[in-house]
């Protein structure tokens, strides 16, 4: 984050993974996302920041069409994944979501065992040939979610009986278990202590080497630590999008500056 130039150069080599063009989202009458254009690059961590209620989650959910499940939510504009329009009629949202994984803002473990929570994705995607392989995936994912040590003795206990932070990490583990190409994380560390946060950030960094990660966060520090690109949303507008270093040190828009310096909320 300090070494601006070097990093920006690596990023330049990255091709665009997701491109959003003129995206508008309405919840019934309410206009939640207003004409957003953004290009999210491969092998990059992109941070979405902005005041609460500005539309970060809404936009994030557009990227893997999770908004389809909300009746009143209408999305217009184009979103391209690897150059293909994900809102195309021919696109199977299921396949899309297998590629674009998601960690939700509110942890939502299945009312099943911890093991089954993590194993579910690999099972439906056929990622494991046998039980041993599956066990291995589960363990690896839980380790990556920085929760293995806490739950290794209670894998058969329900995931809903975990503490808030544990549930959050379980959901992270569940999302990485399916090995998505893009991982959307909506405030993945909100309920985590600094150490766990650091572990998750490490995971994000590791993922970046192969995948594209989008993370919503309220912590400016976190954004600065983990992301290469940052998008600042405000009242449904994408106010500014650029290399993280630049956004934090030299924002173009006065609103971005106000937000970063703690003046608008």
């Amino acid at each position, binding site marked *: 984050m300090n070494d601006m130039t070097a990093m920006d150069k690596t990023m330049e080599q990255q091709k665009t993974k997701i491109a959003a063009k003129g995206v508008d989202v309405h919840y019934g009458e309410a206009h939640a996302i207003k004409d957003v254009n953004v290009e999210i690059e491969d092998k990059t961590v992109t941070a979405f920041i902005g005041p609460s209620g500005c539309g970060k989650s809404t936009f994030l959910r557009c990227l893997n069409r999770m908004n389809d499940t909300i009746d009143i939510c209408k999305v217009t504009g184009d979103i391209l994944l690897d150059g293909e329009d994900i809102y195309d009629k021919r696109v*199977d949202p*299921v*396949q899309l979501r297998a590629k674009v994984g998601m960690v939700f803002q509110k942890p939502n473990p299945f009312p099943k065992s911890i093991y089954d929570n993590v194993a579910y994705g690999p099972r*439906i*995607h*056929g*990622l494991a*040939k046998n039980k041993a392989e599956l066990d291995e995936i589960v363990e690896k994912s839980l380790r990556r979610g920085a929760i293995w040590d806490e739950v290794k003795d209670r894998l058969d206990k329900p995931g809903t009986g975990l503490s808030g932070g544990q549930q959050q990490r379980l959901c992270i583990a569940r999302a990485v278990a399916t090995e998505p190409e893009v991982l959307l994380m909506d405030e993945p560390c909100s309920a985590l202590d600094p150490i766990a946060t650091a572990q998750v950030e490490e995971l994000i960094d590791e993922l970046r080497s192969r995948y594209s990660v989008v993370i919503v966060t309220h912590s400016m520090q976190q954004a600065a630590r983990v992301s290469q690109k940052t998008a600042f949303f405000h009242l449904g507008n994408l106010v500014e999008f650029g290399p993280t270093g630049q956004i934090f040190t030299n924002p173009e828009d006065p609103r971005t500056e106000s937000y970063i310096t703690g003046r608008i909320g």
Partner: protein
Amino acid sequence: MPLLWLVLILLALSVAGFFLGRQRALASAGGNSKDLHSLPSYYGHNVALTGLVPALGVLAIWLLAQPLFIESRVSSLIPEEAIPESSTLGLVMSDVRRVAEGLDLAVSEGVMTPEQARNMRSEFSDVRGRLGEIGVALGSDVRPEVLNAAQSYRNLSNTGTTAMIFVVALIAAVGFAYSYSKTHKDFRARNVVEQGIMALLILAASLAILTTIGIVLSMFFETINFFSLHSWTDFFFGGTWAPNFRGDSELSILPLLWGTLYISVIALLVAVPIGLFAAIYLSEYANNAVRSFAKPLLEILAGIPTIVYGLFALLTVGPALVRFFGQGENGILGVEWMSGATSVLTAGVVMGIMLIPFVSSLSDDIINAVPQAMRDGSLGLGATKSETIRQVVMPAALPGIVGAVLLAASRAIGETMIVVMGAGAIAKFSANPLESMTTITTRIVSQLTGDTDFASPETLVAFALGLTLFVLTLGLNVLALAIVRKYREQYD
């Protein structure tokens, strides 16, 4: 039985197809299931289902069509003059079928050789007697035309069955081959299988529509008949229900409708509070032990035959009410409001008891499904349990509870035995719940099962009543749907 074998073979084939399809899919991905578009089992299901479903469909159609076809072919063999006066071709054909089945049985029991059965002549042998020996009773001696027809019937159906086996097997094979050849790692097996399942789901949902159409049609023509015999103004706007045997009866739905509504409302006034409170207690207060025995026990109430409730109303509840509200000086209240044991109240109360589990069990499940976080939120604010239940849990569970109440109301409208025995059979307008009244449904049943001439308006009115009731409840349901839509609270 070749049919059973055929089905078994198809099933076996489809099981094999499952594994083969799976295998091939895996092979096409070089054994690496991750490269497949879908889970390997979806490829298996795809092959299994494409082989099985069309074949079974054709089999079913064939089985329905073959008898029709053979029937028409064979019946053309029966000369006009062979049909006795007043009989019909259909009847002769059923004789033919019976003889043919008898011959089949005789052959399979070894009483006759196949050749004998094929070449038997009624002129020379006593067919009826010989079939009688193996327990096939025939109505009369077998005439030569009938025997001939029966023999060609057997021939045709044998050929037909052979052809059927061949065709069905061919279709299955083609289906398997096609889907097997399509099986490849990029084939979207899951989508195809899911589309298939979706088609089945839609099929299931449309059954409801078919049933409705069937019901409306089965009542529609008779209703038309009724209105051609009886004035519709009397039916819809008259004030009296008084069928009699001399014709020219007054048959108005209004007093019946009044009785239906009155009795149902009382039943719901009993069942809904009791059922809801029971549900609330079971899901929110009761410990596991109480819950696990009380709920199934209450459900037995829904399974006790209604005749028991009818007698209960007549012999226990009715007289008890009379002791309260009747008998003048000797009664408990010293009033003379009620004379007979049958009344709207008697029937309503007893029906209410029967309906308790309809409300309690279903509501209990729904209340139980409201997430604990909702309760925690309310309790954390210092609400009592009952406040939580009334103001947070119940509104969240509302759609389900409305469904349960609708179900109970529907049952109340449709009940007969309790009304007949508990409410009496008098149709009248009265606001007094201690008087006898009757309902539309009981009148439908009694007019249908009664002794009046079946082509008279007194019997046909049953259909008009049924259809009108159908329309009325439709209106009620539309209303209920609108209410639920309006007040639905979606929790998360």
